[in-house]
């Protein structure tokens, strides 16, 4: 057989210009019926980033150190999920503190507060490592300005959203807020979410919470996220509720 002459078998699509209108992977071109190698790598790299984010770990010293600027105590706790494998298989474990953590919080004689802020890895510690403190740098001045009383910050390893309700309850807070890594997508492995619960207590579910999601520089930026969250905090404390009832009336948030 002669040397292959067709060393560039890729058929490009003529509608590349449509890429301007969407981030979807359109006009990829093809070789035979398959996607070109360049596109294959592009996809695999994005998936690799997402997978790495799922298994990333909280930078506890780094976060604690940065939190010191707010002149507030920092507690570091652990959920019932002993490791990532357990965390992925048992969402119920990630929603509860382990025994040592519960005992620790129970042993503290805490005065009643307005807000407890929790930081947890969720499904992307990468997101939280990068954005939790920068978002708080936008939010904290607003909270202090409004003379709201804060519990110590709580960092939770292997935590899911609902863990903040137990923590807020044990720390006798009117409101719990959790900053947590969202499930990574191919387009964003580093998206952070913030959830808020009024009158937090163990056993509450999604309909009791409000959520501000997609917090990252290319999504909802830190300042906007802090604005939205602060609006929700004020509304929640004032109306003494959170969840569906709050959401229904929050059409003007951020507008």
């Amino acid at each position, binding site marked *: 057989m002669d040397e292959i002459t067709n060393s560039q078998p890729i058929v490009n699509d003529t509608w590349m210009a449509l890429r301007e209108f969407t981030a979807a992977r359109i006009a990829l071109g093809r070789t035979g019926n398959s996607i070109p190698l360049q596109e294959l790598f592009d996809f695999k790299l994005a998936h690799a980033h997402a997978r790495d984010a*799922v298994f990333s770990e909280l930078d506890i010293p780094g976060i604690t150190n940065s939190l010191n600027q707010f002149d507030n105590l920092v507690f570091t706790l652990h959920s019932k999920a002993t490791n990532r494998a357990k965390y992925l*298989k048992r969402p119920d474990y990630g929603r509860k503190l382990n025994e040592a953590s519960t005992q620790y919080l129970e042993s503290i004689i805490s005065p009643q507060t307005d807000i407890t802020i929790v930081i947890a890895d969720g499904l992307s510690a990468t997101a939280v490592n990068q954005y939790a403190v920068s978002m708080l740098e936008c939010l904290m001045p607003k909270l202090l300005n409004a003379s709201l009383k804060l519990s110590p910050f709580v960092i939770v390893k292997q935590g899911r959203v609902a863990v903040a309700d137990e923590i807020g309850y044990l720390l006798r807070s009117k409101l719990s807020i959790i900053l947590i890594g969202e499930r990574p997508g191919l387009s964003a492995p580093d998206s952070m979410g913030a959830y808020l619960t009024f009158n937090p207590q163990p056993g509450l579910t999604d309909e009791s919470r409000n959520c501000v999601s997609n917090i990252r520089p290319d999504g909802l930026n830190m300042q906007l996220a802090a604005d939205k969250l602060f609006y929700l905090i004020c509304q929640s404390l004032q109306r003494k509720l959170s969840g569906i009832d709050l959401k229904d009336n929050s059409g003007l948030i951020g507008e």
Partner: protein
Amino acid sequence: MAYQHTIKNKVYRFNSLKILLAKATPYRSGDALAGLVADGYEERIAAQITLADVPLKVFLNEAIIPYETDEVTRLIIDDHNTKAFYPISHLTVGEFRDWLLADEADTTTLASLVPGVTPEMAAAVSKLMRNQDLIAVARKCEVVTRFRNTIGLHGHFSTRLQPNHPTDDAKGVAASMIDGLLYGSGDAVIGINPATDNPAAVIQLLNLIDTLRQQFDIPTQSCVLCHLTTTLQIINSNAPVDLTFQSIGGTEQTNASFGINLALVEEAYQATLSLKRGTIGNNVMYFETGQGSSLSANSHHGVDQQTCEARAYAVARKFNPLLVNTVVGFIGPEYLFDGKQIIRAALEDHFCGKLLGLPMGVDVCYTNHADADQDDMDNLLTLLGVAGCNFVMGIPGSDDIMLNYQSTSFHDALYLRKLLGLKPAPEFEQWLIKQGIFDEHGTISHQHNTHKLLNANNDLWTK
């Protein structure tokens, strides 16, 4: 009633049919999460051996969720057709498995049994089957449905074009839609998951697809996958609704968590039928299901997730759907942990759906926290193609930028069609050839380089 089996002096006892079904199920994380799995490998096989000896008739007498408290159970029992069941009424679950694989169980015979098979019978027999068995039997089933084209004929394989966009931006959706059509995708449906359930936004998306469809006379149907009550509402305001979509589950409580019940689905079904928009058929419903939905809604009544899933098919078949799609890997690793579990579940769902007479498609998919990747999806897609699956999803580059998960791409469908000699729905295939997108052999042709579709909505592209 108790069931038992002895292995080497160890007596395995199962206190109810429900427990027996759960313990006989191949391992998956969702059943472990629900605390329903067998204690070990031996107990699982003991349960399977025990289940094999249970007469099919028992399933008509021992409801796994009480008739009195669950309308899905009532639907299953009340709609059971004794005459269709008669030919297999003397068999046990194990004998049923052997018979299904025999040559005499051919396409016509299997079709005639459909009203006599209950979801629990289908689930039970699937638990005794290897992946190979699930594929071999499903391939013999042929479920054909019609609206503006013919879906599910043997030798054909369709795709749902899924041009989602995170903000429902019209240009963004249209760009993905045109990309898909130029790759020959969209004969099952052009179906968008909207970012909001807002009726005005849904109508806008429906008009977008419908305008393009009419302009190019595309023999397919459209759907915006909003809640059924939203569809009902917009039907009343004359929106171009081809199909009504709804997520459904296998227990009354699961459906309640989705905000529906059988009466409401019936109302939507009748309303959609009354629009008479189908040109060659009247299958107007599009349902989505998925193992784990009942557990996720805390509504599983101690029934394993695969049996719950099969029960959802009883709900589906009541309303003669055009498409039923099991969104198998979307729910996450706490229900289906890895590629192996996702593949097994998809083959079970496809088999059970087909045995129950449903036009089954599969969203061959995974999320980024599941231990799965594109290689697993390639395996599953190929297996489903061999098994005669009616349709899969077509998403630009497999990457759904709105729902943040990975599914099958336009390219994947082309791969499968070429590999197995499968064609799109006949009417759609003719359209593709007429448009110069495919040649007569089903190969993408180059004639669309300056294709009209690209100039479709010049107004749309103008910023």
